[in-house]
């Protein structure tokens, strides 16, 4: 027997998914996370799961892992003591950033402190130009004295980012080599290796974050390998990257900045896999938990990715699954602003004291309180019955905070709270879809998290999204995603070349260079050359523009025709996004990007035959009044676990399961597909 295992560590729970490679059967588990040392929780979870199923450790042939170590290290500012070496004259680039203040009107909002404090930022004499030409040679004597100061600075890591190193990395590599020779214990991050792309602040900040996180990540991965080996598992470890693909442990230790969104990326990959399998190749995934709402978009089976992102106002230039996060969740607090409008969030009651209905002293009216007051949640079965909700407390909070001041009934106020929180989420979904040129009517809304399937139908209706998918096990999507991911390497080169000065030979040379580099990585991970798929893309803009659009580039040796086709794809992309193209303008190719993908054997989710009866009565528990449009309507209550493929539930209805609740509106049906997903659609 052989098994594949995915382990995703979240803030509260560690989720596991185990796949039997022969039968494709899946098993899931959830154990508490151990934030101080995540490796402990991982090992406990694994031994519980394989113990329960009687799987022998040496039968686990593949282990994939999503981790929040890099994210937490950055967010909590608990990284290494780290220095930075830069070109003379540019010590403060990291601190000045883009010079804009965080809020136009609120002077009290502060910029984040730079990752490396000023006294640990060192300058070295040298200068390279944007052409790659050396204007001033590297000052070896000056470098020696910088290294001396690094040696006495009590640091664990150092980042090096010299101007224009994307065009000519020679000086940066020489600085790196000299530091390594003199101070072999330091972790060194070079910008030309972490992110060889132009615009110095973003490159410098990304490199500094990498250096800051690397020693912590290195220690964690060492511990994790040890714990896993002690369990008797000898499989290689794969780490989920922010781009939705995995990488080896060695690469993760060297470039931990690529794991900043490890867990959320796994969730998106899982949700997309489920949607694709259900035949929904265009999907918008929303994950609504207690405090946040994450949105991502997948078009024609491909997850939308971005090359630039911000974490806590710090730029991170690394390919990532494009996830848009809002401060909206079940715990979001409702309030009335000075202009008399009803508002919800971004303040959240969190887990403690939590919504008023938790009975832990929370006095604010939250979204969860509103859903409870409307009958949409079951007080007895919340979180699988682990927490009993108090509807009386919820109604009191809503009456005091909202209904009385606005002169309306508790139910009207509750429905208002839901509409308002939905309005913010709708705006967020528009940002990732409509604002980027995607028409929601071509998409399926995939709803995750405890609260996602409660709100999804209303979101879909407002956005004209025709159907909603609520997957079978919303709580373990990330762990499932880990089993669905490819081994992936994203590389980029900045070339900054006007279209009339770019020869196919240069493109061929640069792509060949990157392909050699990626092939070597894949080989280290045990992938044969024939097993790698390549995706080539060029970032193109009209000469003078500041944003690039991605144009796919053909495979193999390129000729003039291929290049012309690349430009044509850029014109088309520009037209789709902005409504016009300027075919008579010169263009500029800014970056070339290469993605290397190695397919991993992934589980085929089990398709069961539809039972044809369409009758869900076997799963019907009872009925209760639920408010829709300020009217109580008797809604059927169903147990999700007892619904069979082919069953069709007619709204109004509430479908309950351990970790979530799906609300079916009047005039809507929820059908169970052959993968046990719920598909919600409006009845024509």
């Amino acid at each position, binding site marked *: 027997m052989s098994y594949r295992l995915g382990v995703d560590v979240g803030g509260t729970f560690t989720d596991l998914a185990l796949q039997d490679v022969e039968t494709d059967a899946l098993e899931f588990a959830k154990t508490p996370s151990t934030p101080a040392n995540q490796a402990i929780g991982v090992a406990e979870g694994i031994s519980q799961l394989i113990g329960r199923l009687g799987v022998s450790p040496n039968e686990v042939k593949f282990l994939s892992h999503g981790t929040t170590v890099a994210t937490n290290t950055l967010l909590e500012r608990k990284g290494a003591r780290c220095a930075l070496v830069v070109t003379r004259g540019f010590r403060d680039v990291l601190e000045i950033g883009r010079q*804009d203040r965080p*809020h*136009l*009107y*609120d002077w*009290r909002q502060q910029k984040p402190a730079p990752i490396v404090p000023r006294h640990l930022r060192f300058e070295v004499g040298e200068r390279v130009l944007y052409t790659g030409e050396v204007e001033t040679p590297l000052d070896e004597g000056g470098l020696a004295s910088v290294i001396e100061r690094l040696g006495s600075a009590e640091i664990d890591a150092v980042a090096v980012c010299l101007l224009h190193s994307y065009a000519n990395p020679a000086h940066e590599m020489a600085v790196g080599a000299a530091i390594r020779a003199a101070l072999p214990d330091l972790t060194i991050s070079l910008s030309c290796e972490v992110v060889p792309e132009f615009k110095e602040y973003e490159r410098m900040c990304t490199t500094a974050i990498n250096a800051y996180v690397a020693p912590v990540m290195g220690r964690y991965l060492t511990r994790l390998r040890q714990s896993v080996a002690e369990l008797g598992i000898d499989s290689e470890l794969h780490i989920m990257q922010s781009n939705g693909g995995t990488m080896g442990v060695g690469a993760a230790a060297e470039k931990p900045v690529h794991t900043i969104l490890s867990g959320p990326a796994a969730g998106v990959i899982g949700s997309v896999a489920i949607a694709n399998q259900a035949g929904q190749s265009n999907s918008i995934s929303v994950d609504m938990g207690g405090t946040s709402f994450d949105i991502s978009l997948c078009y024609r089976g491909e997850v939308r990715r971005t090359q630039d992102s911000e974490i806590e106002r710090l730029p991170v230039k690394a390919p990532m699954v494009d996830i848009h996060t809002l401060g909206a969740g079940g715990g979001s607090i409702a309030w009335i602003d000075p*202009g008399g409008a009803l508002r919800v969030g971004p303040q959240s009651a969190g887990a403690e004291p939590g919504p008023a209905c938790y009975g832990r002293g929370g006095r604010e009216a939250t979204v969860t309180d509103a859903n409870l007051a409307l009958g949409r949640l079951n007080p007895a079965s919340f979180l699988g019955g682990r927490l009993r909700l108090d509807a009386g407390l919820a109604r009191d909070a809503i009456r005091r905070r909202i209904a009385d001041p606005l002169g309306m009934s508790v139910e009207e106020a509750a429905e208002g709270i839901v509409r308002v929180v939905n309005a913010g989420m709708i705006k967020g979904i528009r940002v990732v879809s409509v*604002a980027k040129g995607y028409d929601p009517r071509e998409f399926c809304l995939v709803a995750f998290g405890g609260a996602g399937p409660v709100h999804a139908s209303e979101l879909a209706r407002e956005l004209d999204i025709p159907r909603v998918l609520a997957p079978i096990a919303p709580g373990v999507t990330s762990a499932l995603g880990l089993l669905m991911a490819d081994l992936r390497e994203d590389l980029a080169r900045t070339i900054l070349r006007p279209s009339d000065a770019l020869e196919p030979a240069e493109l061929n040379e640069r792509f060949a260079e990157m392909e050699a580099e990626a092939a070597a990585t894949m080989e280290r991970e045990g992938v044969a050359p024939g097993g790698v798929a390549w995706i080539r893309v060029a970032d193109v803009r009209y000469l003078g523009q500041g944003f690039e659009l991605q144009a796919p580039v053909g495979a193999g040796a390129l000729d003039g025709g291929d290049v012309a086709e690349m430009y044509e794809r850029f014109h088309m992309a520009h037209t789709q996004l902005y409504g016009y193209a300027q075919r008579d303008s010169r263009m500029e190719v800014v970056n070339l990007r290469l993605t290397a993908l190695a397919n991993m054997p992934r589980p085929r989710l089990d398709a069961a035959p539809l039972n044809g009866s369409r009758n869900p009565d076997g799963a019907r528990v009872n009925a209760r009044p639920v408010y829709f449009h300020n009217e109580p309507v008797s809604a059927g209550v169903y147990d999700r676990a007892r619904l069979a493929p082919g069953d069709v539930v007619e709204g109004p209805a509430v479908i309950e399961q351990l970790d979530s609740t799906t609300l079916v509106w009047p005039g809507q049906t929820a059908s169970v597909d052959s993968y046990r997903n719920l598909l919600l659609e409006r009845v024509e």
Partner: protein
Amino acid sequence: MSIDPITLEVMRNAFYSIADEMIVALIRASYSTNIKDRRDASCAIYTATGDVVVVAQSEIGTPLHLGTMQSAVRSAMAAYPFDDLRPGDAVAMNMPYPAGPGHLNDLCLISPVFYKGEMIAITANQAHHVDMGGFAPGSMPFGVKEIFQEGLQIPPIRLFRGGEMDPELWSLISQNVRPPVEVKGDLLAQYACNITGERRLTELMDRYTLETVGTYLDEMIRYSERRMRAALRKVPMGTYSYEDVIEGDGITDRHYAIRVEIEAMGDSIRTDFSATDDAALGPINCRWPSVAACVYYVFKALLDPELPPNAGAYRPFDIIVRDGSVLSANYPTSVCNANIITTQRITDVLLGALADAMPERVQAACSGTMNLLNIGGTDPRSGALYNYIETYAGGQGAMHDLDGMDAIQNHMTNTRNAPVEAIESAYPLLVERYGLLPDSEGAGEHRGGVGLTRVLRTRGDVQLTLSSDRGGVPPWGLLGGADAQPSKCEVIKPDGAVERLPSKVTTSVPADRVIVTETPGGGGWGDAERRDPEAVRRDVVAGLVSVERARSVYKVALEPGTLEIDRDATEELRGSD
């Protein structure tokens, strides 16, 4: 139709969603660095009668445009027959006279939104074009006295007809601007922005009906008025005044005083600038909309930073300027640098006056100038004309409980810098230094932020315009806090000879000169001797305050080498006063 607070919030989200999508379209599709990277652009949704309702926010727009966009649309509607417009049309205008954008660069593009054949709203945006012709590259020269010299004046004209740019009008404009390709690209981006707004508003009306959308556009205005009036009640009733100066106008060195008297009257405010000096010869004058923008900005920032700014939020204000003064110049007096210089000083005098009323809310003076540097010429690499334009950050003023931030954009601007690597690839310039400027902060119990320095080397002959201020009269501190270090700009010849430039100048600079700019710090708050010695030590360790300055100004003695605080010596220094 009755208003309910829930639909109000739902509509508010929908409107902002549209405005934000508009600004994203504008920025992403634009050509010039100035818009695409520095984001010197704003956009908004208006009622059909020209009241601004929803201004795209998300830290993108500039506060200056908030006041001027309302006036631009109003002026355009007064001068142009909007009834003649058809779907797909758009009206362009850039004239500060009689009321409109602050200078000719800020071209405003205005599109009617039609629904079932009826004009039911307006979308408009304003973007800073890199050049509008005139005396010098960048169209913000010094040495000029009339707006005719500043550049091309575009009265309201129908630049787009049925979705296409009018070829004859474009031919006229393109002949009068230095980089026609960039200007055209930016105009198309401006058009894309308005079309995006129109398309989304139409979809919203399809969903919610014209009546609902119209009703809630109007309600948004009343909502902001209610919020602004509620906020204004926090200002203690009374009369407050202040004055400050602008140093010269590029022609004379005399100081021009800006004077304000503020009367807080409960839920309304009167700001009277009548006592301000007569208009300058050079282009530091402005018109009423720029003054109004500063007034709205200051009260929103002080009282309710999240308040949605629109026509309703403006209603509680009575803003008085005197014709013929710096703040209400008569046609055709030059105005092109008021955005950069004068608006910052208007903000300063407003805050200076309100310091008496609300010391716990105001800031000490920020850098007080946008330090605009404009360098143009022929690129020796390609033979093409180019134009580099950038405003430099400075120190932020301290508050009663916070240090000012270092090297950051203040008040009426929040444009981003140009990356060094982008400057060098796009222009024949070499950046030799970009960094914080130690010891430039206004000392205080809470210190102001430090300014910055940018050092450029020219690689060809250039025409340079410096538009700055605070070269002599420094940004002031409050409640015993010290003034900050003033600004400076010097040109260094290859033989090392240094020439200091006046703060406002248009001049030629040959190749291989080094241009050193230093921006002012921010003013301090409270007595420097009361500053926490630990905070002083941190600044010294960071290299932002020298050991000598720690001792002489903050009265904190640090051990040489270790930089530990010498408690006894510090006590002695501080006790000796």
